[in-house]
C-alpha cells in the first residue's frame, strides 16, 4: 500500500544528509515502528511520508498515487482523506474543546456531520465526560487520546504517529500504546516513530534507522 523508494533528504546545501537512499514498503493493516536515536532521520522520514516535508530525491507512493511530487492543493486532499497524524506534542488547538478538536478535520473538509461519530470516538477512548473540556483542562494522556480520535475521524488509510508517548509517563504511555494495538487489530495501518525499544516491540515490524540509513528490519 505504501512504497518508499530510494528516498534521500539533504538539509542545507549538501551538508547534512538526513535520509540516504531509504527504501521499504508497507502493506495495508500493518503496524510499523520506525526506530532510531535522535538524528537518525526517523522523524524526517515520517514527515516526508506525510507530506509535511519535501524530499530531495526518491519516490513515495501511497495507494498507487505518488505523493512526493504533489502540489500543495493535492496534498491537502491527501491529508483530508488518506493520511492522519498523531504528534508527540498532541498539537490540539487550545481554543477548542476536545470534541471540537476531533471535529476540526471535518470542518476543513466541508463536512458538517460527524458530531455523533466524534462523540462515539471520544467515548471509546474513555473521554465521554471530558468532551467539552479544553486541552488546558486535560491531562497529557487525555490530550493524546483526543489527538488520536482526531486522527481517526476522517477514517484515513494511514495513520502516522511521531513519538506519541514521548511526553507521557510510563503508565499513560502504556495505555496509549495499548490504544494503538487495538486500532491495529481493528485493521488500521499505523507507522509510529519512536526511540523507545519497549514501544517499538508493540509494532509488528520494526525498521531501525541510523544516520539516515536502514540498518535493520525486525519482524516481531
Amino acid at each position: 500500500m505504501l512504497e518508499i523508494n530510494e528516498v534521500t533528504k539533504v538539509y542545507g546545501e549538501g551538508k547534512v544528509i538526513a535520509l540516504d537512499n531509504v527504501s521499504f514498503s508497507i502493506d495495508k493493516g500493518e503496524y510499523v515502528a520506525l526506530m532510531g536515536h535522535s538524528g537518525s532521520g526517523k522523524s524526517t522520514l515520517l514527515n516526508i511520508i506525510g507530506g509535511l516535508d519535501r524530499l530531495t530525491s526518491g519516490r513515495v507512493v501511497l495507494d498507487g498515487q505518488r505523493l512526493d511530487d504533489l502540489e500543495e492543493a493535492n496534498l491537502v486532499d491527501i491529508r483530508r482523506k488518506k493520511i492522519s497524524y498523531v504528534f508527540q506534542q498532541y498539537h490540539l488547538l487550545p481554543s477548542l474543546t476536545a470534541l471540537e478538536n476531533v471535529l476540526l478535520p471535518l470542518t476543513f473538509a466541508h463536512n458538517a456531520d460527524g458530531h455523533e461519530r466524534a462523540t462515539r470516538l471520544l467515548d471509546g477512548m474513555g473521554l465521554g465526560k471530558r468532551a467539552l473540556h479544553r486541552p488546558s483542562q486535560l491531562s497529557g494522556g487525555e490530550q493524546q487520546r483526543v489527538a488520536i480520535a482526531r486522527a481517526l475521524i476522517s477514517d484515513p488509510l494511514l495513520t502516522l504517529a511521531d513519538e506519541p508517548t514521548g511526553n507521557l509517563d510510563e503508565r499513560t504511555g502504556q495505555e496509549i500504546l495499548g490504544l494503538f494495538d487495538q486500532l491495529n487489530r481493528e485493521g488500521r495501518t499505523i507507522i509510529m516513530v519512536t526511540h523507545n525499544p519497549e514501544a517499538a516491540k508493540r509494532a509488528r515490524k520494526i525498521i531501525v534507522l541510523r544516520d539516515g540509513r536502514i540498518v535493520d528490519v525486525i519482524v516481531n
Partner: protein
Amino acid sequence: MKLHQVVFKDVSRRKKRVLYATIGVVIATMTVIGILTIALAGRARIYNQLEKYGANLSLVPATKSLDTGLGDLTLGSVTVGDNYIQQDSIPVIQQIADTEIRQKIKVEQAGNIATIAPQLLVQADVKGTSVILAGVDPKAEYKIKSWWQVAQGKYIDGANQAVVGSQAASLLRINVGDSIPLKGTTLTVIGILADTGSADDYRIFVPLDVAQTAFGKQGLVSTIDVRALCNACPVEIIADAINKQIPGIRAVAVKQVAASEMGMLDKINKLMLALGGVTLIVGGFGVVNTLMASVHERIKDIGIMKAVGASRKQIIVAFIYEAVVTGIIGGLIGYGAGTALAYAIGPLIFEGSTVSVVPLYLPVSILLAVLIAVLATLYPAYHATKIRIADCFRAV
C-alpha cells in the same frame, strides 16, 4: 462546526491578544476620525462666520457718478442723478427679497424673512470736527452687524440716543452720557462701540428719523443693506429682481467675500484629508506590524490546521475573519477615541468651534478599520501559509 466558528472561539479565548492587535487599527482610525470631526466642526465654524459676515446685498442709488480722484488728491466727483434712495421703496424691497427666498427654500413662513437695514449718511459738525453721522434703523443695523459689540454703556433703545464708533469717541473725546447738540435737537451718547476695524469706528449712529429730520432728508436714505438669513439664499436673483423692478436703485450681491472664504475652507479640507491620508499610511504600517506578530505567534496553530487538512485558502480566510473582528472592535474604539480627540484639540485648531459627535462617522470608522485590518493581515497570512508544516512546529 464552521470555519468562522473556529475563528470566533479562538478570538474569544485570546481576548487580550486580540485587543493588543487592535491598537494599531485604533490609532489609525482614531486619527482619521478625529481629523474628520475637527474639520467638520471647523467647517461649521466658518459657515457660522460667513453667516455673520453682514449684508448679502448692498443697495445704492443708481447714480452715474465718476470719482475723479488722483492718488490722495480728491478732485471731487461728477454726479448725475439722485444721490438718495426713497425710503418708501423699502417695503417693496422687503417683499421682493422674501418672495424669492420663499420660492428658493420653499418655506411658508409668514412675516419678514430678510433683514433690511437702511442708512442715511450725512456730514455733521460735532465739537467743531466734521464726522459722518449715520442714521440707522437701530434694530436692523444691530442684527446685520452681528460683530458689533458695545464696549461701554448700552445700545440705542429710545429716541434721541446715539452710539459712537470707538475711533470717533476717542478722537472727539466723547464719553457715555455726553450730550451732542445737533441742529436744534440734543442727542445723548448712550454707548460706545468696540473696535470693528471698519469705517464704522469713525461714525456716530443715530436713529434714522433723527438724522432725516435734522438734515432735512425726510423719506430719504443713502444705502440699504439686505441680509438674507441663509447661505444658500439666492442673492443674485434678488439683486436682479430689485434692479428690474425698482428704478433708481442699484443692487449688488456681495458674493466675492463668501466665495473666497469658501475657497479657504476648501484648502483646509484638502489639507486635513492629506493629513488624514498620511496618518492612515503611518498607522497602516503599525497595523501590519501588530498583525504580523499576531499571525507569527500562531504559526503552530497554522501547522496544526494544515496537518488536519486545512487548505491555504481556508487559513487565509480564517485570518480574514479575525481581521474583520479586529477591524470592528478597532473601528468602534477608534471612533470613540477619535471623537474624544476632536473634543480635546478641535477648539485649539478652530478657535471657538463647537465639536459634536458625528454618528455618520461610526460606519465610516468601522469600514476603514476593517479595510486596514484585512489588508494588513493578508500579506503575513499569505506568507505564513507557505511555511511547511514541519517548519511550523519547529519554529515553536
